[in-house]
């Protein structure tokens, strides 16, 4: 496995449209999945140590594969309108034995008052964990496991409430009956809520020891958000949501009140997929008609936009944790005025991103990995990405993120190298050879995509969230767009214009730099060390419910 911590970071930071992890009931991994519990000792993509290693240039050019020889199946679907503002889309696939139904509600994070955010998390989980119909949670869990039904409730990254259910085709009626209970006869049992609170608090306390890279990344992310958006911003307060003071505010009454707003036929998009027939479609339609039709949803708030400042210095937060011999860092260049990218611009950004930090390879031959690992040996697993929608659903802010590690004793070198690598990229753009290679690589990558009908449904849901219907020639259109990108000046001009419109650079590190290193960091040109904080103090602040 490729650098475990970077995978975590990637997963955490990536612009994934859907979050499906909040609550899930599934049949336990028995005979097959148990065999796949890989121990996970990983191949690394990073290095540290003193030896510099200059890699010779490799002259072989990537060869474009013949994608036109491949028949790409078009996505076909039926649409059924349901009175009251709902719609059902059905996507048939004869392969596979399963059926899946996704219910994407219009309501969610941004239609519920922000002060009730932890209550909303509880509500989303308690649709399952609070029991449904005649079954308490334990009975419901057993019923689902015994019948091989998988259910999850979550909020998407744009905040919409989502229920997904999967079953083998013959068991679909059982799944539908369960779903009806969950939506129309939820129980929100009080004792189950107490257990939920206990579990959340255990998890929160477990996070506070900051004992591994995954936990440390959560703190780094929080500080990056504070530095960028300010401590009061919604994004800056995600860790504190499970603190005791916040959990104490969660009540059964508020959960019932929120649940009443979430289950609403108005604006609901349902997607039925897999090995389905007309009867399945009718069953779902009948269920949708039973859902209450409330007032159409309006968003009561949204995350504040990023305010542009005239200060172009790299602002830095240093978190000191004495037991760390290596620091983990995130370096970000926010682009507050990027606007909403059009399709051509998105394709160009894909190419720029590929040159700066490619998705293929292991040791790394892209600019950032080559600088931070292969040539310098500083970082164990450097990774960079570009996200055009840093604060969904406000899409006017983009961000280049660079995540890497450095031994404490090489921190100055690491910061200088990372910033220099990005600045060279931002100021000079890419070369014609890089453009040609990246374009070919991205085209070829499309041929290395494995898609099941359910993967296509995920994309379909993304489109629905974006208020768009899918393009039936999605893959071919994307490939043709890529093929057309041969004009270096056009690609570089996009990058330059985005940078020219203003950047907000921030850097957060968690490690144990000594006083001399901190002094040296402060002395770096165009750097402003905004905060040096001990990890213990962050923990104490969080335990008390976050920044006051």
């Amino acid at each position: 496995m490729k650098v475990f911590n970077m995978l975590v970071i990637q997963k955490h930071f990536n612009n994934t449209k859907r979050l499906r992890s909040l609550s899930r009931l599934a049949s336990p991994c028995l005979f097959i999945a148990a065999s796949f519990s890989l121990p996970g000792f990983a191949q690394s993509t990073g290095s540290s140590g003193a030896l510099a290693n200059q890699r010779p240039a490799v002259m072989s050019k990537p060869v474009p594969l013949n994608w036109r020889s491949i028949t790409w199946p078009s996505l076909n679907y039926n649409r059924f309108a349901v009175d009251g503002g709902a719609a059902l889309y059905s996507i048939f696939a004869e392969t596979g034995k399963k059926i899946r139904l996704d219910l994407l509600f219009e309501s969610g994070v941004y239609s519920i008052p922000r002060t009730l955010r932890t209550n909303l998390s509880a509500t989303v989980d308690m649709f399952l964990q609070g029991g449904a119909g005649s079954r308490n949670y334990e009975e419901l869990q057993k019923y689902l496991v015994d019948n091989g039904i998988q259910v999850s409730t979550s909020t998407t990254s744009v905040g919409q409430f989502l229920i997904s259910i999967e079953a083998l085709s013959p068991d679909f009626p059982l799944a539908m009956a369960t779903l009806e209970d969950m939506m129309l006869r939820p129980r929100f049992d009080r004792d189950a809520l107490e257990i939920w609170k206990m579990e959340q608090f255990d998890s929160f306390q477990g996070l506070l020891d900051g004992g591994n890279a995954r936990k440390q990344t959560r703190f780094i992310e929080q500080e990056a958000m504070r530095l960028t958006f300010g401590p009061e911003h919604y994004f800056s307060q995600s860790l504190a949501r499970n603190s005791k003071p916040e959990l104490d505010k969660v009540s059964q009454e508020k959960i019932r009140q929120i649940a009443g707003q979430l289950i609403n036929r108005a604006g609901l998009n349902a997607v039925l997929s897999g090995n389905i027939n007309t009867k399945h479609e009718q069953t779902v339609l009948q269920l949708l008609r039973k859902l209450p039709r409330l007032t159409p949803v309006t968003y009561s708030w949204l995350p504040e936009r990023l305010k542009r400042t005239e200060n172009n210095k790299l602002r830095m937060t240093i978190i000191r944790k004495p037991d760390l011999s290596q620091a983990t860092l995130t370096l970000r260049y926010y682009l507050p005025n990027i606007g909403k990218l059009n399709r051509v611009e998105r394709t160009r950004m894909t190419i720029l991103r590929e040159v700066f930090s490619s998705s293929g390879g292991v040791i790394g031959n892209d600019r950032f990995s080559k600088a931070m690992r292969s040539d310098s040996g500083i970082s164990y697993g450097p990774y960079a990405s570009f996200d055009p929608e840093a604060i969904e659903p406000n899409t006017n802010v983009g961000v280049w993120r660079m995540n890497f590690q450095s031994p404490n004793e090489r921190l100055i070198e690491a910061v200088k190298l990372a910033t220099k690598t990005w600045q060279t990229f931002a100021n000079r753009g890419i070369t014609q050879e890089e453009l040609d290679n990246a374009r070919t690589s991205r085209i070829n990558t499309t041929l290395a995509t494995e898609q099941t009908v359910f993967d296509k449904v995920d994309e379909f849901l993304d489109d629905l969230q974006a208020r768009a219907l899918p393009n039936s020639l999605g893959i071919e259109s994307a490939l043709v767009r890529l093929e057309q990108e041969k004009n270096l000046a056009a690609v570089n001009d996009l990058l330059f214009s985005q940078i020219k419109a203003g950047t907000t650079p921030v850097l957060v590190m968690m490690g144990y730099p000594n006083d001399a290193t901190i002094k040296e960091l402060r002395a770096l040109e165009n750097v402003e060390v905004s905060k040096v904080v001990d990890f213990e103090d962050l923990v104490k602040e969080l335990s008390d419910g976050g920044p006051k």
Partner: protein
Amino acid sequence: MICSSKLRLLTDGLALLTAAFSCAAFAALNLPAGASLITTGSAIEGTPNVYKFKLANGMKVLILPDSRNPLATLRIKLDAGSNREKPGTTGLAHFFEHMMFRKTQVSTEGHYDRILSGVGGRGNAATSTDYVVYESSFPGPALDKLLELESQRFKFLDVQDPYYTTEKGAVISERRLRYENDPLQRGMEIIRKEAYKGTPYEWLTIGKKQDVELMSLEDARAFYRDFYTPDNAQLFLGGPFNVETALRKINDTFGDWSGTVKSQPKRNADRPESETAGRKYVCSESVFEEQHSLIFPSNDNSFRSSVMTQILLQRLNDHPDGTMQRRMTKQKLATYFTLYKTTWQKNSQPYVAWFKLNKQQNFASASEYFFKELRTALNRPITPEVKKILLKQQEVEEAEVAQKMTSLVEFYEWNEFFYGDFKVSAQTKKIIDTLTSREFQSWGRQAFSDIKAFQIGVTAPGKATPCVEFEKNSAQK
């Protein structure tokens, strides 16, 4: 020939008929010189047949033709994990995995990445105690390029400085991040050293700090020579290919790979039970969430024992008050619980009951509850209804695996490597169908005897000897 020798081993009439049919299909295949088809068949109903071959140089090859997507996947697995190492050279297996992505005698440093990403592919690798696996996914039309690329590093790796020393730095850095800077892992390394003393599982796959730092070029070259051999490797290919053509291409690129795996003196994979039974290997670190395991040593490394463990877990979870974990959470005994067999080790596959506890919980209460529930679960009858549920769960999981070609290839890889047989699905059904309550009880009582169990764990501060002191005390003993 192999076809007919297999037939003689079969006694079941249906299997005989199936095998005879398959052999008729074998005859139609035009195989490269020295290559033989061992078997064919499908592990999961409704999925394409997989073909299992052996090349003249001893390398096993499994090909799964699957045209659902243009994607292909290639996985090469070797019996060259950290249990091949000796004290003093620990960490070599994992270190070697890193080196395999660098220079070869026929290509420059950076070549592998450049070609792989150029064709739009992705690569990765993993090392464990018992194996190392190299995996790549790429567009099917790039098969020739990928086979050439992969075979070069298996045949002509160039273990040289400065790449060797640079890569050593990477391993040291990885060790720091994953183990030395993680108190739980730091503690577990100390515990493992004591609990598995004298066995190949005494050290972490990443190796002891000093061994990694002092690792020599010659050690690395010897490891490559001794264990990176075709008779020690299995190649798994899945994608939109004609089987015959794909096999020929594999033979063209890997067929001239030579060498024989070095035989090693047999070592005990487990410590004698008399040394560990009833022992507690526990120390404390600066963690909030404690981890404890009850280890039940086992000589039974069969596929059946793995299935039986999963049945037991199902029996433990099947309770009106919720799953085992839910019950333990409700009673504030633990925050997490599961039960498994260590199927990823070939020679030592203990059963393990794994607990996570918060600071306020204590392991004695959790383990007491576990043993009580274990006895109850073993005494409950295996009824037809229970079997129906178990079979349903298997069917759901098979449907999950069947959805993706890459999952299917991984499924074949796992079962071939650890059980030498990919037709485990049918075995699972048979085990469930024919299982009696008495057999289940008898197996469970023998497998989970509390007399032979021992405990390993890392607690929160103040609840056990600090791990640093524990290590010192162990060294003094």
